[in-house]
C-alpha cells in the first residue's frame, strides 16, 4: 500500500507540485499572498514536497531532521499555520485524485487506500504541527528575552547626572523594572539628577503617567531629582487633555535641554575652548 503511494508520488512529482502550487495560490488568503513572493513560495513548496517524499523514502531520523528545518523555514517566511495544515490536506487530495484517475485506486480498494492515507498523513500532520508550534514558542521566548534586554538601563553621563532612555510600551512588568533599575542606579552612580527620556515611548496614558510619577517620587526619597525629557508636542497635548498633573516632575522637551538644565542644577556648564592654531 505505502509502496504504491510512494511510487505514484515519485513518478508524478512535477505534476503534483504544479497542481498543488496553483491550488494553494488560489486558496491562499490575502495576508499570505502579500507576505510571500513567488520565488520564496516556489522554494518553500519544493521543500514541502521534498519533505513529504522523504517521509516515504528515508529513515525516521533523517525525516525528523528535515522536518525541523522545514518548520523553521516556514516560520521564518511567515507561513500561517492554517496554510500549512491546508497544504498537507490538499497534497493528500491531489495524490488521491491522481491515483484514482490512473485507476490505481478503484471502488474495490477505496476503503483500504483511505486507511492507508490516514495512517501515513496522520502522524506526519501531527509532527509538522508540533514542530511548528515548538518553533513558534521558541521564537516568542527569544523575543521576550530580547525585549527584556532592551528595557531601561540607567546610564551615567556626567558626574551626578544619569539618563534613563525608555523605548516602547511600558506595561506593569516593565514599570516595575524601571523603578528598580532607577533606584539601584541612582544609589550606585550617586546621581543627583536623573533624566527619564520618553522620546521612544509611543503614548502616555494615565497608568504610564502614574508609574512615572511614582518613580520620580521614589527618586526624590533617595535624595535625587528627577526630570522628564523628550515629551513630544502631541504627547504634551494628550497629557493636558487627560488631566494628568506632572507638577511634581521637572520637564524638558529634549534630552539636550534636559542635560543643560541638569548641569545648571549641579552648578556646571559646558563651555567651548579656543584652539590655538
Amino acid at each position, binding site marked *: 500500500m505505502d509502496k504504491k503511494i510512494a511510487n505514484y508520488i515519485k513518478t508524478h512529482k512535477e505534476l503534483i507540485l504544479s497542481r498543488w502550487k496553483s491550488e494553494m495560490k488560489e486558496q491562499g488568503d490575502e495576508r499570505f499572498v502579500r507576505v510571500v513572493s513567488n520565488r520564496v513560495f516556489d522554494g518553500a513548496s519544493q521543500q514541502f514536497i521534498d519533505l513529504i517524499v522523504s517521509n516515504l523514502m528515508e529513515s525516521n531520523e533523517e525525516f525528523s531532521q528535515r522536518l525541523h528545518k522545514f518548520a523553521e523555514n516556514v516560520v521564518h517566511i511567515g507561513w500561517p499555520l492554517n496554510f500549512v495544515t491546508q497544504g498537507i490536506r490538499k497534497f493528500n487530495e491531489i495524490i488521491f485524485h491522481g491515483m484514482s484517475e490512473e485507476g490505481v485506486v478503484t471502488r474495490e480498494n477505496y476503503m483500504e487506500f483511505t486507511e492507508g492515507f490516514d495512517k501515513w498523513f496522520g502522524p506526519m500532520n501531527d509532527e509538522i504541527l508540533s514542530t511548528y508550534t515548538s518553533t513558534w514558542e521558541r521564537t516568542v521566548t527569544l523575543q521576550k528575552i530580547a525585549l527584556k534586554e532592551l528595557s531601561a538601563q540607567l546610564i551615567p553621563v556626567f558626574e551626578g547626572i544619569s539618563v534613563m532612555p525608555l523605548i516602547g510600551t511600558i*506595561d506593569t512588568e516593565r514599570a516595575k523594572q524601571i523603578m528598580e533599575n532607577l533606584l539601584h542606579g541612582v544609589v550606585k552612580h550617586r546621581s543627583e539628577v536623573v533624566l527619564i527620556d520618553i522620546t521612544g515611548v509611543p503614548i502616555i496614558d494615565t497608568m504610564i503617567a502614574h508609574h512615572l510619577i511614582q518613580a520620580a517620587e521614589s527618586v526624590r526619597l533617595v535624595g535625587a531629582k528627577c526630570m522628564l525629557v523628550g515629551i513630544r508636542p502631541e504627547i504634551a497635548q494628550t497629557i493636558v*487633555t487627560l488631566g*494628568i498633573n506632572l507638577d511634581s516632575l521637572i520637564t524638558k522637551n529634549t534630552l539636550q535641554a534636559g542635560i543643560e538644565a541638569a548641569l545648571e542644577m549641579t552648578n556646571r556648564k559646558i563651555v567651548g575652548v579656543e584652539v590655538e592654531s
Partner: protein
Amino acid sequence: MTRSFVNIINEWDIVAARQLCREFAKELGFGIVDQARITTAVSELARNIFLYANQGIIIVEKIEKDGSVGLIIIAEDHGPGIGNLAKAMEDGYSTSGGLGAGLPGVKRLMDDFSIDSEVGKGTVIKTAKWLR
C-alpha cells in the same frame, strides 16, 4: 476596512488594540495629535477592561454623519460593572489606586462619549472622534 476589533485577554492585547486604532485613525486621515488622542483613549479603555473586567473587546468602526467622517470606539465587557457612574466620571476618583483620570480623560480626548453600565452585567462605552 470599516470595522475591526481586538479581544482584550491579556496585557499585551492593550498594545494590539492601540496599534489597531492608531492605524485605523491614520488611514481615515486623522492628524498626528488626533491619532495620539485616539490611541491614548483606546489605551485607557482597554486597560480598564483588563484591570476591572479581566476580558472584553475593543471595536473600532468608521462612521459617517451629515457628510462628516469619523471613527467610533466601542469598549465592551461583561465584568462587574460600575457601581457609581457619576463618581467614575469624576476627576481623581479611582478604586484601584490609579490617577483616576481615565474615564473623564477619555471623554475629554474624544468628541462624543456615552457609557452604559450595570452592576454584575458589564459595561459598554462608546466614544467617537470626528474628522475636521
